[in-house]
């Protein structure tokens, strides 16, 4: 009953190549980055990997690079670093803003952006940023790098497009310099996962994405299209929950979640500068 994980082997990888090699050679191995999604599941024995491959020491995955059109953020960059990065605040301000709202300071000092995205938790904050901004995931496997659009990345509950022998190595965020943004996170306690969250990215290619409104992180497609076509705030907000199949739990039934999605979308749109 909790707290003590089952036995596992522990290996450290010094490079992406070494991590890929270890992944290929171990059955049922898991990558360990910040550990803030994986370790709690292991302590509850909901997950019992045979081997943990610790990639947290790979320096090349901890860099934030300005490539011109995009900001490339290494998958092992900690939330706290993203939150405090001047270049992120300047070019993808929604990301900097939301990174500061993940969990609590302890979580943000350990958790990584890649770990959060690749976990595929529909209740996590950062997938909605990737979806709203139209980010691209850089996935590395034995055959080299491949790029996956955020919209194709989140497959189902705790399931992403990253294969068992692949590693999410970086996320490329298109620059949204100077564009408005909004993020609304509805919680009962300040440090909790969102009951419902909504991310809005304004600008030339606007996007709206939802937190905890289905089995996987998802874009609010109808609302995003309406926004792009110039619909008003109320009309866009009314479409927020279109096509969703929200979960039901002690905090919210599906009706309440749909309602919250609409209310929060309106608030996020207003915060992003829409009227």
């Amino acid at each position, binding site marked *: 009953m909790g707290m003590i994980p089952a036995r596992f082997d522990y290996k450290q990888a010094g490079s992406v190549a070494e991590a890929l090699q270890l992944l290929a050679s171990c059955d049922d191995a898991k990558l360990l980055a910040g550990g803030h999604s994986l370790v709690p599941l292991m302590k509850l024995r909901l997950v019992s990997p045979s081997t943990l491959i610790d990639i947290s020491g790979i320096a090349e995955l901890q860099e934030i690079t300005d490539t011109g059109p995009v900001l490339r953020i290494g998958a092992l960059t900690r939330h706290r670093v993203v939150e405090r990065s001047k270049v992120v605040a300047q070019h993808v301000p929604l990301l900097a803003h939301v990174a500061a709202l993940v969990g609590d300071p302890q979580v943000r000092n350990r958790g990584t952006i890649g770990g959060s995205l690749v976990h595929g938790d529909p209740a996590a904050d950062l997938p909605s940023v990737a979806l709203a901004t139209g980010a691209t995931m850089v996935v590395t496997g034995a055959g080299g790098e491949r790029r996956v659009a955020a919209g194709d990345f989140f497959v189902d509950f705790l399931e992403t497009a990253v294969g068992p022998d692949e590693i999410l190595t970086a996320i490329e965020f298109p620059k949204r310099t100077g564009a408005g943004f909004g993020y609304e996170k509805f919680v009962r306690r300040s440090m909790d996962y969102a009951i419902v969250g909504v991310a809005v990215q304004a600008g030339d290619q606007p996007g709206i994405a939802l937190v905890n409104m289905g089995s996987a992180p998802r874009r609010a497609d109808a609302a995003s299209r309406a926004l792009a076509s110039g619909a008003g705030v109320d009309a866009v907000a009314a479409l927020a929950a279109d096509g969703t199949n929200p979960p039901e739990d002690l905090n919210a*039934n599906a009706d309440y979640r749909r*309602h919250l999605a609409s*209310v929060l979308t309106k608030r996020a749109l207003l915060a992003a500068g829409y009227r």
Partner: protein
Amino acid sequence: MSLIGARVLRKEDPNLITGQGQYVDDLAPAACAFMAVVRSTEPHARIVAVDTSGARAMEGVLAVWTAADIATLPARPSSLPGMDMPLITGDVARFVGDVIAVVVAADRYTAADAAEAVIVDYESLPAVASLAQALAPDAPMIHPVLQGNTVFFQDYTQDLSAEFAAAPHTASLSLVNNRCAPVPIEPNVVLADWGPAGLTVWAAFQAPHHLRNTIAAFFGISQDTTRVIAPDVGGGFGAKINFASEIFLAAALSRALGRPVKYTQTRSECMVAMFHGRAQEHKVDVAFDDSGRILALQVQVTQDQGAYPDATGMGLPVLTTAMSAGCYKIPKVAVSWRNVVTNTTPVAAYRGAGRPEASYMIERVIDLVADETGVDPIDVRKTNFIPADGFPYQTHSPLAVYDSGNFAGALDELLRHVDYAALKAEQAARLADPTAKLLGVGFSSWLEIAGFGPPGSLEAFGHLASWESAQVRVQPDGSAIIYTGASPHGQGTVTTFAQIAADQLGIDFDRISVRHGDTAVIPQGIGTMGSRAVAVGGEGVKTASTRVFERAKKIAAHLLEATEDDIVVENEEFHVRGTPSKSVPWSQVAWKSFQPLELPAGMEPGSLDATVFQQVPNFSFPSGAYCCVVEIDRETGRVEIRNMYLVDDCGTVINPMLVEGQVHGGVAQGIAQALYEHMQYDESGVPRTATLIDYLVPAASDLPGYVSGRTVTLNPSNTLGAKGVGESGSVGAPPAVINAVVDALSHLGVKHIDMPATPQKIWSILRGSK
């Protein structure tokens, strides 16, 4: 200068904040083995088979025990005959968390693996997960000895039908007092070491002597070779006066294995195994006139006892019904209660234990009467208060004779901080603006029964007695050690008791140590619960210190060749009044107190040492007035507490910082019950909130700042005048919060909302009103 009322820094803190505290889990004697527990995952099931072969075969496993292995041991102490809680249940599991097997291994990880390897074959039985299910006709039964699921039923203490028939108005209210989990930071932890010289048990416990006496009786061993030590204890909230089965199992396993056995409960286990609190339902009828004067009150309390009734749990509705009239002079009060078993975690003491339930009920009733009559809630309170000159006041209950209080005074002091008229104007203005958040203002004038100390008050719950011990022992250098039986678990007793002793002895605060929590060191003791530590234990320290000081004065007078009555002490110097030059330091008096040739005739060496078993004639009655201001988001239903105003009357304050800490913590737990926490089960009896993801303990960032005031009416039952404050916040806060929430929604015709007032619940109301 007196230290009573001084903001003295805690003596405990340097240790605790530098990580040097010593909790049971920090202890690791040589050859220590680790216990893990296999718990029922079924709410109610016949146990067909328990396969322990896999666990036994694991390397490092020292023992795997099922019910058959403890057949010679009694059931868990504090159980009720015929409904005993087995330490390990063999035939039937009666709640999720019931112990089915225990495993001991050489290390903690192997123990966890082995527990996981025990396979239990269940045959599910129909379960009762709620009071409604338990009381339904033909409900499944949990204990064959009962007819149905009601353990005890007390019919209305008097028939008030004539009063209700004659009253100008009547109203009724059904209330649920939501089940809470105590969630101390430190769960239950025990280390048992049974050697040739006897048994030593280190336990996270609030009453070590009580545990020592119980363990000795349980195993049929002698108390002189049974030692219980409660080192630093990381919170308890009442849950650590319950005899956790694991304590007795660890001791039995240590005896069998011949090595120390340690058990540290995990948080997941703690949520279902540590006894819960509250879990009451109330049916209330009230009769009143046009002015809001209450003429009669009728309360029926139904207490969920969980799967196994506990002696403390059985007492909860007694306390609730005793305090049902709150601060009010109500001519006729009839109470009724029943204790009911369900397939859930047992229920016992949790911060306030029976009294928060009472204050919540009566304070909701007051606001209901206000709503029905149109009289302001403040005025309804003032109309019905027991007047300041109305004490002692015999309530409808023989248990409760209120001995002091000034309820109107506390409310007036509160209104000095609250601009009530401005708030009501703001509320009206917001109602007119559909985009504005709703505003609600709620009050509670609360009263509790505390200071458990009069003879009989704790014996009823199985304790040896209700006094508290104190020993004051001056050392040869003039420093002093205080020994108290009121073993703390975070209260700051080491500080407050040193303040009390310093005042009486004239010894510097920094040269007074307070020891507690070890039955081999402390001369008997009862424990810390029911807000009694200062009111009874602190009074004991004062009495013992006074005795020692009188003897020290005799010695000083002898040394100074003066008369005893002329001796005063200042800055640790005894001198003759008016002649400061003629003096002798405390250190010399102390030194000479051990030297027969230096003593006055008839005085024996070592006399600066006194032990007191402090008795008090009555309970204490802390009271106060709280006000909560909430804002409600009309779109989401989210409640936010904007302001919380707190006026406490706990009598004499020994240390204002510690009183504030207790009030803030208690209020936090009260807000938690009102807005966040609710231990829930599904219809089959499976807990739905057994992790801290689902069971919402609020953090500091979720709580408001507090504005505090104070009134002081002295406790006439001790010379300190202190009433106790440990539970006050949890008694006063829930009704203030819910009264505010109901006030914010009253324009929609809302008369009541059950705790916790969740956003979804309020959104449903707001949506329904459209």
